[in-house]
């Protein structure tokens, strides 16, 4: 894959940047060009916002059969996290001690996501880990 494809979204993935509709107040991650509820009224008015990175685990799975780019991380935990601001997000869950529990508080951490190949670009982004744990 070309570098630009991932570079253009790097702020969103590094800092959890989404947006909000000023008309209905709905929040979106990743950011949307228009609010699916307010349609054209919202075009050009969507307001960028940074999410706190705090949320709760909504569902999870332990992935054993992985894509080639992720085979060095096998097995890993994928989760869907419900952010405290509302939207849900798909990410790996890391720094776990044992099996995760649905509903557990989690927080975003900045991590390496994958390397495309030995010579390839290293891609970074968000993962989540248990929150409120002394480290």
């Amino acid at each position, binding site marked *: 894959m070309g570098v630009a494809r991932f570079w253009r979204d790097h702020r969103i993935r590094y800092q959890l940047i989404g947006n909000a509709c000023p008309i209905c107040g709905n929040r979106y991650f990743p950011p949307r060009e228009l609010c699916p509820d307010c349609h054209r009224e919202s075009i050009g008015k969507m307001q960028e916002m940074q999410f706190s990175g705090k949320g709760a685990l909504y*569902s999870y799975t332990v992935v054993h059969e992985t894509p080639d780019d992720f085979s060095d991380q096998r097995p890993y935990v994928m989760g869907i996290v419900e952010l405290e601001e509302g939207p849900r997000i798909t990410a790996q869950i890391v720094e776990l001690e044992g099996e995760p529990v649905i509903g557990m508080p989690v927080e975003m951490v900045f991590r390496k996501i994958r390397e495309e190949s030995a010579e390839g670009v290293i891609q970074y982004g968000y993962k989540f880990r248990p929150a409120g744990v002394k480290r």
Partner: protein
Amino acid sequence: MRKVAVVGIGMTPFGELWDMSLRSLGIEAGLNAMVDAGLSSDEIDALYVGNMSSGRFLGQEHIAAMISDQAGFTRRNLPAIRVEAGEASGALAFREAFLSVAAEIHDVVIVGGAEKMTDVSDAMAQEIFAASVDQEWESFFGATVPSLYAMMARRHMLEYGTTREQMAEVPVNGHRNAAKNPNAHFRNQITVDAVIGSGPVATPLGVLDCAPVSDGASAVVLAPLEIAKRMTDRPVMIAGSGTATDSISLHHRKTLSGIPATTIASRLAYKRSGLSAKHIDIAEVHDNYSISGIMAVEDLGFVPRGQGGPAFQEGRFSADGEIPINLSGGLKAQGQPLGAIGIAQVVEVVRQLRGEGGERQVGNPEVGLTQCVGGTGGTCVVHVLKVV
């Protein structure tokens, strides 16, 4: 809109077909459907093709024209249209073909679905297959298709108490039915214990919860009902057609324990047919994963929400149950050549409604349903078919 009937059905075996190319698969299924309809190619007005990813599996795009050429249709320069909607490509192509006849754009059309998946490595096939989910916001982070369905399964288990044993009944049912299907990828029977004990793919799903990578093609011929009555003694009418979309990312949906697009598409199909879930005698549903079969029977309204697991366990969807499901073996056991799935479902339902199911025929069903899903539910297509 005029009424439309299926007048011909055909398919190839599904499986790892090393000696078959996409072209040869498409032509074999199409010819079988033409022979079944008793038609010659000069009676066809248009070709529709359902295919998910020939560009990545084979490097070949523009395959509607390619298959049209191989079929001899380019002698008359017929229109040929490819439709793509992930794993629902074939089902949506069927719907587009149906609409073109209903709208009096064409009279007799052939619609085929095909996928050649085994010319690439298994790892590559899985990667291409995953292109029907969100590449930027799901796959980028390591989510695979089975991992997304596994997270749906986990929510279903939490919200309704669905058990691992109940989920396992779905592939057990598929394999039991496929044992009587000579075209099936897998004809061996499996047990609940074998499913639960199968190697983990994405917990709680194991290898035997997941439909395989298969090659294969399927095709049907459609005609206006009035013409169909002159062509065959037992035309099967397309009584209702419904399709719906939803977010391509699973995480954007309000619920993970069902597929809202299935519910909406089925209600549209029921409404247009004047029928409801209680009229359905048989169904072919999208059991790409074990949990999908359970969600399907709930989303389609066959059982109340949360009752899919117990109903499978009680045998209510077995060949001798109230609504036999996936008499073909379904995606799990008949096989999963992506673009061919949706049309293969129609082939099986029509076969049963005509009473031509052979060893796996169940009684005299009059109304059948097909349900096909793209990705994790970004698209769903439902059809209700009825004996005239």
